[in-house]
């Protein structure tokens, strides 16, 4: 065995370089948000910048440890690791709340967020379980166990409550989709309850996850753009909840489907066809309604959090309920093509306080403000490359275990990327989750890095796997 050579020879250098580039841009932005002409220097490690440098050092050390350990250990100990992270999630519920959530474990500035580490535990257990399933003869039990592995940590997380991480856990459904864990048994059971229904397979069940994603995306987007109600000012009397408008448009679409579709369906299946359309319509409507309710309550929670932090002045009151969103968009938009220059953010620097949380959830703001579209385009390119490279790596794995894990990492990072940047540019509701490798924060930095280095290690050892 050529141990030393093996450690580094199969590492995906491109991915590692991209990781370091994003890391550097992130820590530079953290430095810039807290920038102060008098006191700041790259070697002044007091303040958030210094702490972030420390978190990065710890993360890299953990990454190195992960790299030195044989990756087989995670598969062997997948259940203990999963249970350990679950225990952390339970323990954290008994701590005193900080900012209205019981998310922090530990003392003072060195607390960790168990929810961040639960992602790793879930990914590992899911990978090892899916690896064991015979995908061609999967049973209802298989599907339910997969769902349980994901749903149990989600349950504890929403109890904290941490809506952001809760949403991120749905990334695992995409992994299941890729692996072919089908929701057909569930959907079939549901549909076949109705008289005259005898389906063996449904299109909805097979592509349930991407459909769900599209549905969620459409619902959230329309809801968000219309701010919970459509104000029909010209009529003057009614404010129609936007969910009603969405359900109404589903109805129109369903009607169109029926009118066009019935010409292609033979008369014997006509009844079935109508029922499928009706079921799909009610399912979609139900989902949209619940999503709208969930997001409305989420946004209110965010609003209160901000009102606690700031005494709004007259100018701020104009931004009103959408204070965060408007301030963030203003900061991003004011960057222009070339930006205001490094360390020159006026809206999103920490001391200006216009953009709240500008070093964590809204760190994209100072970056966009200082580097302009040139900077943001480069960062978008980097993240896209990073994510697609992970998908690429996932697909080249020989073992299902490795592939499931790689997809889990890829999809979780994708969710963080899409939600975080989306809320910075006003396309996604404000649910506070960090930008991976970029935002200030110890837990997220460590958990993402460990997750990433496990992936790197698995990839470098992919040839050891025997068929």
């Amino acid at each position, binding site marked *: 065995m050529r141990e030393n050579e093996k450690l580094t020879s199969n590492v995906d250098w491109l991915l590692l370089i991209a990781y370091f580039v994003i890391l550097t841009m992130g820590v530079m932005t953290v430095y810039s948000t807290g920038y102060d002409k008098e006191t700041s220097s790259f070697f002044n490690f007091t303040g958030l910048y210094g702490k972030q440098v420390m978190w990065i050092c710890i993360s890299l050390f953990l990454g190195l440890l992960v790299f030195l350990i044989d990756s087989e250990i995670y598969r062997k100990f997948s259940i203990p690791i999963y249970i350990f992270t679950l225990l952390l999630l339970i323990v954290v519920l008994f701590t005193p709340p900080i900012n209205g959530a019981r998310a922090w474990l530990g003392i003072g500035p060195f607390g960790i967020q168990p929810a961040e580490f639960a992602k790793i535990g879930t990914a590992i257990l899911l990978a090892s379980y899916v690896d064991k399933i015979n995908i061609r003869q999967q049973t209802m039990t298989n599907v339910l166990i997969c769902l349980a592995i994901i749903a149990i940590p989600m349950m504890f997380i929403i109890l904290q409550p941490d809506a952001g991480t809760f949403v991120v856990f749905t990334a695992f459904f995409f992994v299941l989709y890729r692996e072919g864990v089908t929701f057909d048994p569930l959907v079939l059971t549901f549909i076949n309850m109705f008289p005259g229904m005898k389906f063996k397979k449904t299109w909805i069940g097979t592509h349930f996850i991407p459909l769900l994603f599209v549905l969620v995306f459409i619902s959230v987007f329309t809801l968000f753009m219309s701010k919970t109600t459509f104000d029909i000012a010209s009529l003057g009397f009614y404010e129609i909840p936007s969910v009603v408008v969405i359900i109404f448009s589903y109805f129109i679409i369903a009607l169109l489907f029926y009118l066009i579709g019935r010409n292609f369906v033979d008369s014997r299946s006509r009844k079935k066809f109508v029922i499928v359309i009706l079921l799909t319509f009610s399912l979609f409507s139900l989902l949209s309604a619940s999503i709208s309710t969930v997001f409305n309550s989420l946004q209110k929670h965010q609003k209160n959090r901000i009102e606690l932090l700031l005494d709004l002045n007259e100018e701020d009151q104009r931004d009103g309920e959408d204070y965060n969103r408007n301030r963030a968009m203003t900061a991003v*938009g004011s960057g222009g093509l070339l930006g205001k220059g490094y360390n020159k953010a006026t809206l999103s620097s920490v001391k200006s306080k216009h953009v709240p949380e500008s070093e964590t959830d809204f760190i994209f703001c100072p970056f966009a403000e200082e580097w302009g579209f040139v900077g943001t385009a480069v960062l978008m390119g980097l993240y896209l490359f990073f994510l697609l490279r992970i998908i690429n790596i996932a697909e080249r794995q020989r073992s299902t275990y490795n592939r499931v894990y790689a997809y889990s990492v890829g999809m979780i990072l994708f969710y963080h990327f899409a939600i975080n940047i989306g809320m910075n540019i006003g396309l996604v509701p404000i649910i506070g989750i960090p930008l991976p490798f970029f935002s200030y924060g110890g837990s997220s930095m460590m958990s993402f890095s460990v997750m990433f280095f496990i992936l790197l290690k698995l990839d470098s050892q992919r040839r050891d796997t025997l068929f």
Partner: protein
Amino acid sequence: MNLNSRKYVIIIFISIIGIVYTFRLFHMQVIDDQWKLRAQEIAEKRKYIVPPRAAMFDRNNKKVVSNKAYYNLMFVENDIKDLDTVAFAKLVGMTVDEVKKRFIDIREKEGYFKRKDGKRIPNYQPVRPYAFLKELTADEIAKIAPNLDKFPGFYEQVTSMRDYPYAGGANILGYLSEVNQNEIDEDRFYRSGDNIGKAGVEKFYEKELRGRKGVKYIVTSALNNVIESYANGKYDTLAVQADPLTLGMDITLQVYGEQLMQNKMGCIVAIEPSTGEILAMVSSPSYDPNLFVGRSNISKNYPILVNDPKKPLFPRPLQAEYPPGSIFKLTQALIGLQEGVITPNTSFPCNKSLVGCHNHPDARNVSQAVQMSCNPYFYGVTRKIIQQGKSRNNFIDAEIGLGIWAKYLHSFGLGIQLDADISGLRSGLIPDPNYYNNLFPSKKRPYGKHRWAFSTIRSNSIGQGEVKLTPLQMANLAVIMANRGWYITPHIVKSVGENGPLPQFKVKHKTMVDAENFAPVIEGMRMAVNEGGGTARLARIDGITVCGKTGTAQNPHGKDHSVFIAFAPMDNPKIAIAVFVENSGFGGTWAAPIASLMMEKFITGKISDPSKEKYILDAILE
């Protein structure tokens, strides 16, 4: 079922999100300008810097009005930590309850009114600074400031306010006070909290005194704290203090005049005849201008002064309208001479059956008539002016005559509002034909058109009846006498910066009486002061030829008012003066010596007869 192809679904998802986001960023950052404008609105603010108000100097370059530093004790509630109220109350000299009440008052006072419905929105914000104590003097803050480090959240702030080194001239100088909403709406120069001149020179010369505000462009935080200057101060402008005003006033004379008028009610107006500059304008009783410095002083002292029965806030020289008494005879003599109804040598017997008079020999000419102030003489003169025989109808004749008479008097600046540089001037009253045509003193005896003639209005001939003048107009009459027929509108400010007076104060107003007709009247004035039998012997000054005329204005409510107008010296006059002492009796007794002291003080700088000065200073005539 080919699971491998499902990777494309995921790749497409990721790519679509990436592309949509990139386009969105391109639109927000490059194409759409609204975010850049919004960013400016939010973070870039203009801060106005108010320059110190221009100073004022008197004619001898003595500083009359300047600025002095005052201090506000500010606090920011959120910065206050563990306030030891007992120690703090002791430091600021209040009780604990007062301190608490003060905090509550500040909190309740802060707010603004909605434009739409006028609803009051409370707007107290614990992150913003407010003044706990306002307008402390250097001495007061010196006791507090060294101990402020024990009270985090409190700090001192300097402001500039008016300072009056001489406690005189309050009614000329005026005072400053905070702008009200109307003034802000009228002139966009002002913002809430700015000061504006509310009276006197401060009000009239507001634009000349206020200077130019500086603008500082700053970047502010969400809490309105200044973070840095915008673009390194490239667009900032400096506050520019306006050039000082030079007043025509002689502050020494002004203060002296106020001393002389102590314990008397009335006023003194002294004017330099050749320029129309007001040398002194005393209104008694008056007040110390320092009582009106700063909001707390004004709110404390204003109610006291405004409720004082002696009306110290009433600017008598401008607004009190008195019957002029015998000084009015000067105008009658001049008009008579100009109209040719009398000559310098015309004589009228002192016929006391027409109008009462004191005992004196008959006046053989105009000069003697003026010297002795013979009532029947001027009764005759005025009758000749009014009843010139231009119509056979006595009533129509009187109407024509009075029309001519009033026009002459208007040319003396009487009965019209003088265009002086101080607001609130009254015009006095010179009755013209319309006045009597519309006047109904009683139902029994209405005037009405063609129902009055000279005999009805004869009292005016000796300055009683309907005629009323303000003390400023009386002084202006003295100016006209001194100048032999012209005047420049009396004004307070000699020069705005280096630019001289306002243009309207360079114009000579000619009266309708020619210069040669003044000689006999002025001779009479000289004799009244300097010759035996004159009415104004107490106005005599050794070595200076004073010309003057006494007056005694009958006062139906009490003792007569004492009036005197004069100028000196006779040739090339340097000062013209009017003195009015309410309820003090005959003009020669009080007004004349006061005028003489003022003139001597101004011309020679000292007083040759201390007994006269003592006589006036000791007098209590209230």
